[in-house]
């Protein structure tokens, strides 16, 4: 028996019972589509987080005051009072050769007003290098000028949204605004940029770090952002930071250095695990489809008992019958998988239109895995009915009408 004939015969058998065939294809398609779509969603979440981190800046190290114990153990008896990070600490870090850029950061919240309008926003005190480290870009004017960071100039750069709310369509450049109890001249407006990790860069006002410290009456820094010279320089930079700070803080390791890579890989691991478990749940629906195929094929075998008996009488071997019924389940699951892929792409497209900021793309491996798992389920669950058909006794099969 030729394989083309096997496929043709099975195809005719399937098209002979269209309702049943369509229902099975639908079940298979839903299974395959849900595997692909859910994997795409998980993968999208992973990409989303990765993109967020990269938008923070490349080769980034974040220095936080205080020591975070990740190894566990009881808290110290006398309590730990970490030293503040100061501007001098920050400046001393730039001496390391593995560090390219440094931006100290002070954060506070203060009312910003112009004429009769005022808004409470986050005030970010930093230096000119923040511009490069955070990959910012300007809509108008310029960023905070380079120069001695300990001198507090009365200038500020506004986020896009804040400018819109205070000035509307008027030009803000050169205007004086009041931040807290001080007056600052607007020298630039940041370009529209997405949110990055909680801080909406459209809704801030950036001032020189010394001005912010004066504004909030503090000498402590919220954190220090560092950019290493390259990916390989990150561990070296981290070591240098710890050594420098230890030296300056009388032998105490009282800062925490977070590297972007470490954060990223943690999130990456979590999200990959999440994607896989979601795909696993979707795979259950695939196996349900497989069981459905088995059920319906078993019914088909008993419905077509006389046909099987006849085939045997006219000289079909057991292996012929087995091949015919296996081909039927394989065709069903293949077509189902095909429709599933189409369905998944439609769903993908719909989601991508509904949430344009969320990068949804089905990874190729998910596509291949879903289709091959579908085919495998079809064959595995098709074996039992096909074997039952192949083993039918022709005399008994033919004696039924």
């Amino acid at each position, binding site marked *: *028996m*030729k394989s083309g*004939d096997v496929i043709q*015969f099975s195809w*005719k*058998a399937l098209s*002979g019972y269209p309702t049943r065939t369509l229902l099975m294809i639908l079940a298979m398609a839903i299974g395959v589509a849900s595997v692909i779509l859910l994997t795409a969603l998980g993968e999208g979440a992973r990409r989303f987080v990765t993109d967020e981190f990269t938008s923070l800046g490349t080769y980034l190290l974040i220095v936080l005051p205080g020591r975070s114990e990740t190894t566990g153990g009881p808290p110290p008896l006398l309590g730990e009072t970490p030293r503040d990070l100061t501007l001098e600490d920050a400046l001393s870090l730039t001496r390391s050769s593995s560090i390219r850029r440094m931006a100290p950061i002070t954060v506070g919240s203060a009312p910003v007003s112009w004429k009769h309008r005022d808004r409470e926003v986050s005030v970010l005190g930093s230096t000119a290098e923040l511009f490069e480290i955070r990959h910012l870009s300007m809509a108008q004017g310029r960023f905070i000028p380079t120069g001695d960071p300990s001198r507090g100039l009365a200038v500020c750069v506004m986020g896009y949204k804040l400018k819109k709310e205070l000035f509307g369509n008027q030009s803000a450049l050169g205007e004086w605004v009041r931040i807290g109890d001080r007056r600052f001249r607007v020298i630039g407006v940041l370009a529209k940029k997405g949110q990055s990790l909680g801080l909406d860069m459209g809704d801030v006002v950036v001032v020189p770090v010394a001005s912010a410290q004066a504004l909030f009456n503090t000498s402590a820094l919220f954190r220090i952002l560092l950019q290493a010279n390259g990916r390989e320089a990150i561990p070296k930079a981290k070591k240098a930071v710890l050594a420098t700070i230890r030296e300056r803080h009388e032998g105490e390791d009282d800062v925490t250095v977070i590297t972007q890579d470490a954060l990223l890989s943690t999130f990456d691991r979590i999200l990959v695990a999440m994607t896989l478990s979601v795909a696993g749940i979707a795979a259950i629906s695939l196996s349900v489809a497989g069981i459905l195929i088995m059920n319906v094929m078993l019914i088909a075998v008993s419905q077509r008992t*006389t*046909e099987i*008996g*006849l*085939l*045997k*009488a*006219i*000289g*079909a*071997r*057991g*292996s*012929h019958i087995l091949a015919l019924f296996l081909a039927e389940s394989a065709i069903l699951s293949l077509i189902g998988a095909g429709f599933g892929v189409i369905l998944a792409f439609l769903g993908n497209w719909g989601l991508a239109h509904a949430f344009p900021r969320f990068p949804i793309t089905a990874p190729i491996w998910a596509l291949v895995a879903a289709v091959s798992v579908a085919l495998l389920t079809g064959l595995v669950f098709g074996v039992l009915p096909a074997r039952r058909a192949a083993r039918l006794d*022709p*005399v008994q099969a*033919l004696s039924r*009408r």
Partner: protein
Amino acid sequence: MIHLTDIERKFLVGDETVRALNNVNITVHQGEYVAIMGPSGSGKSTLLNIIGLLDRPNKGVYSLSDLDTTELTDDQQASVRRHKIGFVFQFFHLVPRLTSAENVELPMILAGVDPAERKSRVQAALSSLGLSNRTKHRPDQLSGGQRQRVAIARATIMQPDIILADEPTGNLDRTSGIEVIQILEDLHTKGITLIMVTHDPDLGKRASRRVQLVDGKISRDTGDS
């Protein structure tokens, strides 16, 4: 060519053993026309099934063209059925979703015959039985006589040596029954061995040899050689 020696076939019905065939000995030569007759339950169909290699005897030897069939595997028996034996059943047993042409084509598909050759042989077979305008019809669009003719075309398409017919007219009216019998007898005159199970004495009289079965035993055989 068909040579049955001491054939016995037992069935287990509940916890009782029923001997459907008991010590049957029969030899059928090439080109004979045999009617197997007897009351229902006498073992006629079982005998036909054993001759057709659909069933295996519990005891005895069945040799077909000097080949001991009891030694053959299932697959080898299938191959013998494919090439040497054609079946005609009381209930036609056409595949309902396939057209007449496709039904006739089935044995050749199983034998792996080339598609182009299949088409021409199907056309020839159907038109020789007066069905050339019924090739695209499905069985439910055909009359009983037409269905049985399609079944005969299917049984003969592989040019077998033997045709086994189990009550071929049992489900037909008188006119189409006679038509079908005449087709089968035509095949016999062309040299095919025809073995027919029937309980109709009129049909039995047409055969050159009549074998009477009672309770699984041959009670009368008009032409034993």
